[in-house]
């Protein structure tokens, strides 16, 4: 890595001030994405603003919503009794991220702010119609997760909380890359009283909803309903690991597996 300065502010206000004081400053949460980037000399920030000790890690349920502090580590979500009871699919998703070392440091806020096209959390955020709260405002996940490694965050804006709508039931199924462990394709399926939402990660440049599959499942929430249903490969990612056609097929298959997990048949 390049030489850089490091600060550990005590409050969010201080953190924001530091970010504003230096346009090449960058905030750091668990560092599980950003530290490897630094080590490979792919970024040259002048100042690292460490948020890891000041972000909330609280997890709470109220009025049909599950709210998680941006500083909650993947292992916190994976093990949380509250999450396991109210939204077990999210605990399972967290448990599928990387390896124990990554889960012990990486945070939900960091993952959503980074919006890696192959990350797991964005699928849950989109399928569960999450609200993302920052030091400036609130966003709907569908808006916030705006593109490949892109969000609506300003340089001096920090994610503080994520609020998920609790579904009747949900499941996440992931086809992990043999190399990185990230999703080649992952499907988060959430069933609400009056709605079914299917969010696909890994396959496209940004997490997206599979409308055709959602429609089919709204009619009949069953694996059989997905028979013959497809996702259009056009616009999906193609690289040496998986081309668009394969990712499209995997996305449908992962959706089937998620539905199967829920219905058990």
């Amino acid at each position, binding site marked *: 890595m390049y030489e850089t300065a490091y600060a550990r502010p005590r409050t969010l206000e201080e953190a924001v001030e530091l970010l504003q004081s230096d346009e090449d400053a960058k905030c750091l949460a668990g560092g599980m994405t950003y530290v490897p980037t630094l080590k*490979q000399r792919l970024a040259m920030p002048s100042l690292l603003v460490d948020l890891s000790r000041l972000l909330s890690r609280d997890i709470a349920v109220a009025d049909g919503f599950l709210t998680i502090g941006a500083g909650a580590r993947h292992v916190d979500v994976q093990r949380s009794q509250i999450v396991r009871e109210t939204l077990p699919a999210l605990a399972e998703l967290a448990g599928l991220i990387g390896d124990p070392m990554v889960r012990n440091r990486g945070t939900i806020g960091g993952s959503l702010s980074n919006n890696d096209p192959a990350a797991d959390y964005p699928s849950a955020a989109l399928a569960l119609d999450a609200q993302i709260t920052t030091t400036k405002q609130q966003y709907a996940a569908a808006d916030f997760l705006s593109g490949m490694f892109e969000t609506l965050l300003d340089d001096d804006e920090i994610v503080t909380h994520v609020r998920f709508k609790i579904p009747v039931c949900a499941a996440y199924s992931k086809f992990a890359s043999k*190399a990185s462990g990230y999703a080649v394709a992952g499907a988060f399926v959430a069933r609400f009283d009056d709605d079914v939402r299917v969010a696909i990660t890994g396959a496209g440049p940004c997490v997206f909803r599979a409308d055709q599959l959602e429609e089919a499942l709204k009619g009949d929430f069953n694996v059989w309903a997905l028979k013959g249903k497809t996702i259009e490969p056009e616009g999906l990612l193609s690289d040496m690991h998986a081309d668009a056609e394969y990712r499209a097929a995997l996305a449908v298959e992962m959706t089937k597996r998620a539905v199967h997990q829920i219905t058990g048949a």
Partner: protein
Amino acid sequence: MFTDDVKLTNPLHVAFVRSQIASGEIVELETEDALEAEGVAAVHTGADVADLGSLSVNPVLPIKHLPPFSVLAQATVRGLGQPVAAVLGETALQAADAAELVYAEIEPTESSPILVAEKNWSNAQYEEAAAKADHVVSCTIQHPRLAPSPMEPRSIAAAYDAETDCVTVWHSTQTPHRTRSELAAILGIEAKRIRVIAPHVGGAFGMKASLYPEDVFVVWAALKHKRDVKWTATRSEEFLSATHGRGIKSEGELALSSDGTFLGLKAMVEGPVGAWLPNSGLITAWNAARVLPSGYAVPAQDITTQAVMNNLGPTGIYRGAGRPEANCLMERLIDKAAAVSGIDPVELRRKNLIPATALPHNTLTGNTLDSGDYAKALDVLCEAVDYPALLAEQTRCRAEGQLVGIGIGFYLEPSGNGWETARVTLNEDGSVVVASGSSSQGHGRETAFAQIAADALNIDIDQISVLLADTAKTPEGIGALASRSTAIGGSAVLKACEEITSRLEASEALPITADVRYENKGQAWGYGAYLAQVSICRSTGELSVERITCVDDTGTIVNPKLVEGQILGGLAQGLGEALMESIVYDEDGQLLTGSFMDYAMPRAADIPTIDIHKFETPSPMNALGAKGVGEAGTIGAPAAILNAAVDALRPLGVTDLTMPLTSQSLWRAIRSAEQGKS
């Protein structure tokens, strides 16, 4: 202690500037900005090291064109990642920062492959044999290029001693004595000015059997600047510029009669080599051909191998080093022959394996297969898995529409030839020091050598200390490679202990030191048979290896635990080749798999249930009777898994697959087969 942990005095750190172009002419090389950067002691380019000598290359194949060995690229760049300049900094960070200030303009040039070495073995009857055969099957196997990836990357540390004008070099290597002699030859200095120590070595797998240009630079710089100098590669540098393994393409044709008797084999092997050749740079292409036709009797043979230079990363020996390639070709051909002739794959192998009574057997390619009972390996295997029951189970699963396969891989593993040394001292207090010219990279060699000495001298193992890998304290030797260390190095220890025993009996006074240089009678050939059971998911192409059963005859076993460790580790690497590992370059010759995020390494969870069975036929080729086992798993596993995968898809009409068997490639194979049918 590993090399990077060695405490040097105020050392200079090296950062290499590497070519981002695979083939080109250096038109400009600006080093001034780097030289002015803080903490930079010197910046060197090709001109500074132009006079240095070359690394020697083991000429197992007749060399037609020897690529030049440049410590830093001279006017021409011939390989991606080749060092073109080197920065010496007071800290590693300062060196790395300054390296970015070196401006290298390299004009890309067209390049075409160059034939480096070639050999043919033929008894000129193949065409005749093929003409009268009832079946001729053929196949082409393109092995993926693999990154050996020991946990510890390359690392070297040189301490300069002003008083004597000598260097002590800590080197993460398999061959410390060779490091010393090669350094002396390349630098043009007396070997006695160099002491080489290989401290703990965090894995090597063949990748650290030879010196690298980077290593030479570090020692040259220490002598030139009269200072301590060190370098440890980053993982990215390893993917780019440490030697890769495999990458071999082999094509073959097997002719047989309707009753399954093999009549002839024709094979063409092409092995890629990089811009420069390590010591063992030709071994892989040689082994991939000369281990043919494995343990089978094949009357007519026409076998050719070529080493061809291209402009990708350098290649070298990697655990197996041509053995997996030769065996894989043979085993695929046999499975294809089984499919066309309708003969059971086990039966077809058993019928054609050289019988125990015909050993030793001289092959056309110049080998002597020393000892064993090849068919017995199949018998033990079939019994261990209950082969008839396995086939019945497969029929049942297939009827349910499952894609399940059974694959067999018989293999031969030649272990090294030549000599190794041992110096054993029995002290007055009864303690024993065993010093060997061989070395260890976590094999447990110290344990095995101590056991051999304890048995031979009939003393307690705690009385024995083993010294390895320090040129100042051990006799000149070869090192740990080619599955040779226990067979040859262990035999040297045994002989030295026997000498001590007879001198004791002749009432010689203590301490007694026996120096032995043991030369084996020839290669000991380990062999075995592996069976893999796989299932493939129709909708995603995911392959699961349900179970692997191994039968190995590794000759006399010194330590069963260590042998098992070797089989398991080799098997994991063999599974890696079969299922996921592959170095990939794009059309412009840029490396796409530059980190573990893109290069898939097997993890513990990828390793299936493994059943190990063994029997021992002592080899007559060395005093211990041991055979090699270090490479067994890397040879047997890929052939068995590949055969099992093809078998799983056989009902769909699939006859060939290419490793690594990624889920995408299997999904495609399934889809095209299904679409082709409908």
